[in-house]
């Protein structure tokens, strides 16, 4: 009976991870810096929730469970989509930044886009 309760806890953790992942998907569908930051926080929660599932199952010994396995596989598909999204976004943003850098500061001697530097502006009046 105790085993069933703990096993139920694992299922609850998995459901919480799935709910967080749904929220991440919703957030990323309307891209903004704030949404991206919030997604990162939620993803850390997913990481913790899945860690809990793994810890509970390891402790109690896992039984074949088609429903839980399907849930994990579904999450895996969603993570694959996220990974593809972040890989594509990283590529796009770095290409875009390179274009902005080269337009702003030209190219280095090695032919790379000039790095962006922070220039503090000082205004003196009077």
């Amino acid at each position, binding site marked *: 009976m105790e085993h069933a309760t703990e096993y139920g806890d694992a299922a609850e953790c998995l459901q919480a991870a799935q709910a967080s992942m749904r929220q991440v998907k919703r957030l*990323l*569908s*309307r*891209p*903004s*810096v704030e949404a*991206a*930051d919030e*997604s*990162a926080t939620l*993803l*850390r929660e*997913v*990481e913790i929730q*899945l*860690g809990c*599932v*793994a810890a509970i*199952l*390891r402790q109690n010994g*896992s*039984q*074949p*469970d*088609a429903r*839980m*396995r399907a849930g*994990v*596989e579904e*999450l*895996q*598909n969603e*993570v*694959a*989509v*996220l*990974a*593809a*999204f*972040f*890989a*594509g*976004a*990283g590529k*796009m*943003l*770095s*290409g*875009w*930044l390179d*274009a*902005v*850098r080269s*337009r*702003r500061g030209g190219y280095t001697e090695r032919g790379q886009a000039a790095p*962006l530097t922070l220039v503090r502006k000082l205004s003196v009046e009077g």
Partner: protein
Amino acid sequence: MGNLYSILNSAAQSLQAFEQAIDVTQNNVTNANSPGYADQVPQLISQDYQSDTGINTGGVQEVTQDTRSTYADTAVQQQLSLQGMYQQLQTTLTPLQNVFDVSSDSAIPSALNALFQSFSQWSTQPSNANYQSAVIDAAQQTASAFQQAAVQLGQIQTAVTSNIQSTVTQINQDAAAIQSYNQQIAQSPQPNAGLSAQLENTLENLSSLANIQVLPGNGGTVTVLLGGQTALVEGDNVNAIQAVNDTASTAGNPGAAPTISIEDSNGNDITGEIGTGSLAGLLSVSNTFLPSLIGGGQQVGGLNTLAQGLADSVNTVLEGASTTSTPPYQAGSALFTYNAASPAGIAGSLAVSSTITGSQLAAADTGPPVVANGAALTLAGLDSSDPGPVDGQGFTAYFASLTSSVGNAVNNANTQVTAQSQLVAQAQSLQQQVSGVSLDEEAVRLVQFQSSYDAASKVVTVINDTLQSLLSIIPG
């Protein structure tokens, strides 16, 4: 007089400038939801004092500035191009899952299962006419399943070829439209936001069809390069492309579908330059993926390899066995036939020998020692023999590997389509956010996005590892 005239003239010009500024604002409001439209910002600048005439002191002149960010447009186009490719792959590859379905009720696995069961049953009573007849029936079902799969793949190949032709036609139509916009923009005395929006909309549509590079020209006109190298639209010129069947590609592989190449207006092969867009997706399916299954170019195709492997293995056993288990031994007949002259058409031509009868099925292995049902037993165990008869695998396992390659390709396309639709939304959102801001502000916003995504991306990698270990903990 000079002064009075210049004051009046200056006032008139100022009024005209403000009127134009109001028009621009009105235009922005009207086109707020028009696809491809970028806000026009009216800028009022002082005109120089002309000392020689004394005209135009302190007046203003309206200069309309397009808020479009060069790279923002490029980013949207690139993401649309990737989306176009993955959507095309998803649409084209999904029907293949009907042919390559590993479930027991799908045609080929189910026919193979029935065939090996019939061999097994026959091995229990080799002279039983009903069992012999069941073997021939099962063989006919198997041949029919292969033929049907070949027909279905042929239909998909035909549809893909037709899609390539229509995509090339769309690309040429978009190129012609862009050329027309270029002409209108060149003739327009001042920037025309409507034309610019139409041009951008057409460029985005073209991006979803193929990977293009847009080079800004004079006064808002553009040069469009296909794959970054071939000029598709250059000022007033359109270099139409065409899809060509490369018949030389099938030399030595009769019956195989030719590779399709894309040529520019001078007949140069530019297929290698088509990297993304729906055309790239179609070319990849037509020239690489389908040939790996049903043959094409120099490939025989997995389905044909399987059909030939099955026919040859079964025939070899039967022809090397005897219909009687006592002398005089009588060699058995081949069960399957196929057109060996067309390696890429073997699955489509696989059939049961029209002359074979149940009594011609040879069940006896003449040994020594002689085993009355030895050949029938060998046939019954053929699918599970080690190493297997088709590239070291059994027939069912080989078919499963084909199914797996189709399934993986479809899954990958599904994943990429979902991710890509978010990337398009992101690129479009950033396009809106950076329109009209300075390069520095654009860079700051991009760096913010980059660091936020970096943080999230690292967590995703950890989550993926955790999910992998979870799957190993939970037995299936």
